[in-house]
């Protein structure tokens, strides 16, 4: 899958492919291949360095973009998934468990998106129900009891807007997480890997550090939703995306996030290893810093972190 704005890349890739096929019979095409490859990389860098907000949304939603399970496989060992909210069910849109990250034992929670139709049904496209948020909170309390730092991976278009979710208290579940996560006495690092969709993202998004991948987005409402309300035209999503300031650089400037983790050239979906390397480096740094703080200091800083957003 590629985007409209990636057309020049696609063309170059096609030509490189064609030439490579000729290489056997005409070895001299190698020079051309090298030239085109260089151009491809430059073009890719150029395109990805000037993505519009709306283009970034598309990249953030790319179906091949690394999902939670890719991060689990790429960064952690000994993952043990833990199930259930001890109340109603085991939501598969938010999963969690113990894992080992370098020399750190940690607890992971995060939205799980699928890459196939079957997976998307099973994971409900990463849109959690109340039991997902409640499971996350239960695991956070385990992490607190066991003194395990937490890494929370955010990638959701939002909390599931379904009848059953409303009945079982979607609002209450998110609200309680916001309240209680602010006081969970263990370090929490939040990483937005793809879509940070509104309350559904924030519901597992309160922590000591908020990091974003360079092509991820984080927004109070989807650009489509905003466009259809304020522009009365969902097609104006690009304008809304721009106005909402949802990209990592914009959010860093607004002092909402702590760090942008740079993706490899051409986006996370083009280079899984590159992403893992960058994320690993960042997580290690922040975990080390947070583990050095007393719990009191940690919680005071977490409180102040959110208190100062929109302070007068």
């Amino acid at each position, binding site marked *: 899958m590629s985007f409209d704005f990636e057309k020049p890349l696609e063309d170059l890739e096609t030509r490189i492919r064609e030439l490579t096929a000729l290489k056997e019979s005409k070895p001299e095409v190698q020079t051309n291949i090298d030239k085109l490859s260089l151009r491809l990389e430059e073009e890719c860098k150029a395109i990805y360095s000037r993505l519009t907000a709306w283009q970034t949304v598309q990249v953030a939603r790319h179906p091949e973009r690394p999902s939670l399970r890719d991060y689990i496989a790429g960064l952690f060992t000994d993952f043990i998934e833990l199930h259930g909210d001890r109340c109603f069910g085991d939501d598969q849109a938010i999963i969690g468990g113990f894992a080992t990250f370098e020399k750190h034992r940690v607890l992971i929670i995060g939205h799980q998106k699928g890459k196939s139709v079957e997976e998307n049904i099973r994971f409900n496209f990463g849109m959690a129900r109340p039991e997902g948020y409640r499971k996350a909170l239960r695991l956070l309390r385990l992490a607190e009891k066991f003194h395990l730092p937490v890494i929370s991976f955010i990638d959701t278009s939002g909390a599931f807007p379904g009848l059953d979710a*409303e009945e*079982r*208290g979607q609002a209450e579940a998110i*609200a*309680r997480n916001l*309240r209680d996560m602010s006081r969970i006495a263990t370090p929490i690092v939040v990483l937005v890997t793809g879509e940070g969709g509104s309350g559904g993202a924030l*519901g597992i998004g309160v922590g000591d550090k908020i990091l974003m991948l360079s092509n991820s987005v984080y927004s109070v409402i989807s650009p489509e939703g905003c466009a259809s309300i304020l522009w009365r035209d969902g097609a104006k999503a690009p304008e809304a995306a721009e106005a909402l300031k949802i990209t990592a650089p914009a959010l860093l400037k607004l002092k909402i996030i702590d760090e942008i983790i740079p993706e490899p050239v051409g986006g996370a979906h083009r280079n899984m290893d590159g992403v893992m390397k960058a994320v690993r480096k960042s997580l290690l740094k922040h975990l080390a810093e947070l583990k050095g703080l007393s719990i009191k200091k940690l919680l005071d800083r977490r409180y102040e972190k959110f*208190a100062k*957003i929109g302070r007068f």
Partner: protein
Amino acid sequence: MGWFSWGKKEKNQEAPAKEDLWTQCTACKAMLFKEEWHKKWKVCPVCGFHDKLAARERINLLVDPKSFYEFDARITISDPLKFTDDKGSYAEKAQQACDKTGLREAVVTGRGKLHGLRIVLAVMDFNFMGGSLGSGTGEKIFRATEFARKKRMPLIIASASGGARMHEGIVSLMQMAKTSAALARLHEAGIPFISLLTNPTTGGVSASYAMLGDLNIAEPGALVGFAGRRVIEQTIKQKLPDEFQTAEYVREHGFIDLVIPRKDLRDTLHKLIQYSMNTKVD
């Protein structure tokens, strides 16, 4: 000082024109004598429909006369995104909301007394940009919560909101976390928080402070929910029952303690505060 009540305002004006004497119930369309209707705090005597109250009106309903002292009245909207849509800028829109309502934000906060008991009160006003949760709203609620904690006074927040204020983007979203964090500390300090959910309380406000009361109480028929009805119907591809997301429905599903008609609200709150502060039995 006590804020203007409708009755008081009336006295200061000229005799109203005949058409101003009557109003129509939004729900049952009955013609109502305006003064009567206002005396009943905008509850329809025919069908019991609870119409929206402005923040000042609700404050008058809840606190003892002349007992209210407002906090942070000068806090007004900020525009962190310099947001503009095709109909104009957020700054202009917010100015219009200020002019229309006489408020500077979607919430009025302060302290007062309720039947003599000291309370901290935050009252949202749906007339101000749909009661949306902006950074000014969040900051005022945050400060009121901190005040309640430090002075060990019970906190009441009356919500009326369509949710987060998207014109402030992520800054608005983060007010959910900010206000909830303040409530976490209030809770740790053992101070009661009563959330009053009025029509409507949805989106980011229901998914933060409005659902975090030690006691969640609601007005009859108030719309209370997270996602919008239309979005849900599109998602599940079926029509929702009429009573869906009403206060009574949400009570049956376990998230609201009490549904209290407006006429009993003050007395019920008084009792709940007595229990929650465990004051001496008279």
